[in-house]
């Protein structure tokens, strides 16, 4: 009998060892699968969800929540399952709650990357605070600025978590924190990258603006140099005499004069009329003298009175063309016989008084002739002049 008794005991021991081994294998399996599940996740919110689901599933809890308090970004993130209307916490509220939790942990103080269990969760977190009856709660610290809590209701088996289960929960939490830390680093990198991208965009815009500004400056510089050249040239022109200016003044004056003369009531022909008129019949000095001697002609000086008074043919009467209508009737109109010839003389380099007067005389008398050579030719032949 004595030899039989150790065998069942050994079998029982072996069976316990087997069960223990199975549990450990299960724990390792859980850790492995959890790690594999977290591997592709980089967003904190998704990590929270995955962690809560894994923990609730592993420990058979129907209600649970995870709270993460980030002092650096002053944000509180949470995830809950099986709780009707999970409340939102402010940073202050979350910190107060965590502080209460730390007071009630086994260790009182947690090192970075470690987790600790609250000794009497229902007392620390009443049902009204989290929305469900907390049965198990653990606090964790990633670093000085990131910490949080995971809380579960009683498991479906109604039994308290064994020491091994608690170790598994601690292991899962620590493992999860590694991913959480990575996610945070990733988010930091992402934010830095975003910032860099914005800065790059700003820089690119600045470079574009600068290039445009440089182009504008070049255009303005060119305009400035052209302006300088123009003013310089104008200054040079102002300071000296230019024949071109005189030419311009002459052209301008001519254009203005012709335009004004065209529209003015006092306008005059640009070229004197005698240029286009048919010349009156001529008579030479000798013939004229004979006609005068025979009384067949009268002699008229067509020049202005001043010139007439200077020197004229002795027998001539002075009838200046502008005064023709007044003087003609007085000096010639009454005495002139129809068969007599009127001999007209008087011209200068600038004015053909004889032609003007002849045109007027022809309107009243048939026989009108111009004496060729005028006073000079008359005097040359030795005929009398006066005074």
């Amino acid at each position: 009998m004595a030899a039989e008794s150790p065998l069942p005991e050994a079998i029982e021991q072996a069976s316990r060892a087997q069960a223990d081994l199975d549990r450990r294998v299960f724990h390792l399996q859980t850790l492995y699968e959890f790690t594999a599940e977290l591997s592709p996740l980089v967003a904190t919110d998704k990590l929270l969800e995955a962690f809560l689901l894994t923990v609730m599933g592993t420990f058979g809890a129907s209600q649970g929540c995870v709270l993460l308090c980030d002092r650096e970004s002053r944000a509180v993130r949470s995830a809950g399952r099986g709780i009707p209307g999970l409340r939102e916490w402010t940073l202050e509220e979350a910190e107060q709650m965590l502080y209460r939790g730390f007071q009630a942990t086994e260790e009182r103080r947690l090192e970075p990357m470690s987790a600790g269990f609250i000794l009497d969760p229902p007392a620390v977190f009443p049902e009204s605070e989290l929305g469900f009856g907390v049965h198990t709660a653990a606090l964790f610290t990633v670093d000085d600025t990131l910490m949080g809590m995971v809380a579960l209701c009683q498991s479906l088996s109604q039994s308290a978590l064994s020491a091994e289960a608690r170790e598994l929960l601690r292991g899962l939490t620590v493992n999860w924190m590694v991913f959480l830390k990575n996610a945070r680093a990733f988010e930091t990198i992402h934010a830095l990258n975003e910032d860099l991208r914005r800065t790059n965009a700003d820089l690119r815009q600045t470079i574009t603006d600068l290039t445009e500004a440089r182009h504008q400056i070049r255009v303005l510089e060119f305009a400035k140099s052209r302006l300088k050249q123009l003013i310089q040239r104008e200054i040079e022109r102002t300071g000296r005499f230019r024949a071109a200016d005189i030419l311009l003044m002459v052209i301008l004056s001519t254009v203005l004069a012709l335009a004004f003369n065209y529209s003015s009531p006092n306008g005059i022909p640009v070229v004197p009329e005698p240029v286009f008129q048919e010349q009156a019949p001529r008579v030479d000095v000798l013939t004229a003298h004979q006609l005068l001697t025979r009384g067949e002609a009268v002699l008229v000086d067509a020049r202005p009175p001043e010139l007439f008074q200077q020197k004229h043919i002795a027998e001539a009467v002075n009838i200046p063309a502008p005064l023709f209508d007044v003087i003609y009737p007085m000096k010639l109109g009454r005495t002139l016989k129809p068969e007599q010839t009127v001999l007209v003389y008087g011209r200068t380099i600038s004015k053909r008084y004889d032609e003007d007067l002849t045109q007027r005389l022809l309107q009243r008398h048939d026989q009108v002739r111009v004496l060729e050579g005028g006073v000079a030719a008359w005097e040359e032949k030795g005929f009398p002049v006066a005074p």
Partner: protein
Amino acid sequence: MKWPGWLKTSIAHPVLGLLLRAYVGGVFIYASMYKINYPGEFAETIASYQLVPFWAVNLMALVMPWAELVSGILMVLGVRTKSAAAAIGGMLVMFSLAILITLLRGIPIGCGCFTSVEEPLGWGTLGRDLLWLIMTLHVYFFPSALQLEGRLPKSLQEVEG
């Protein structure tokens, strides 16, 4: 002969230049007015000098007053002052020569400088024209104030600044 400093300064003073510019330019503007309105009378005056060929008398009577007006305005404003002074100087030389020749020839006519009805041409007329000619030479050779184009150097400074 050395000129006293104050005389030199006075003669070269820009205000004197401005006064002469305004006076001579003003005389030319005034002289042009009647002649522009009554070119026929002015043509008679030109003809009475017996210096211009008869086919050119009317054209000269039309253009000359406008040339006086344009150069007079330019001179008063101070635009192309040297060129305007040269034009006015040229016209004054021409007038003086015409008067001198007419006086020597003894043709009894009116000056026709401003209107057609004026005192007869005399040596005083020639002296007056020569005085204006000296004033014009002053405008040509010395600087004068308040020229419209006098602002250009300042504009250049502003562009460079």
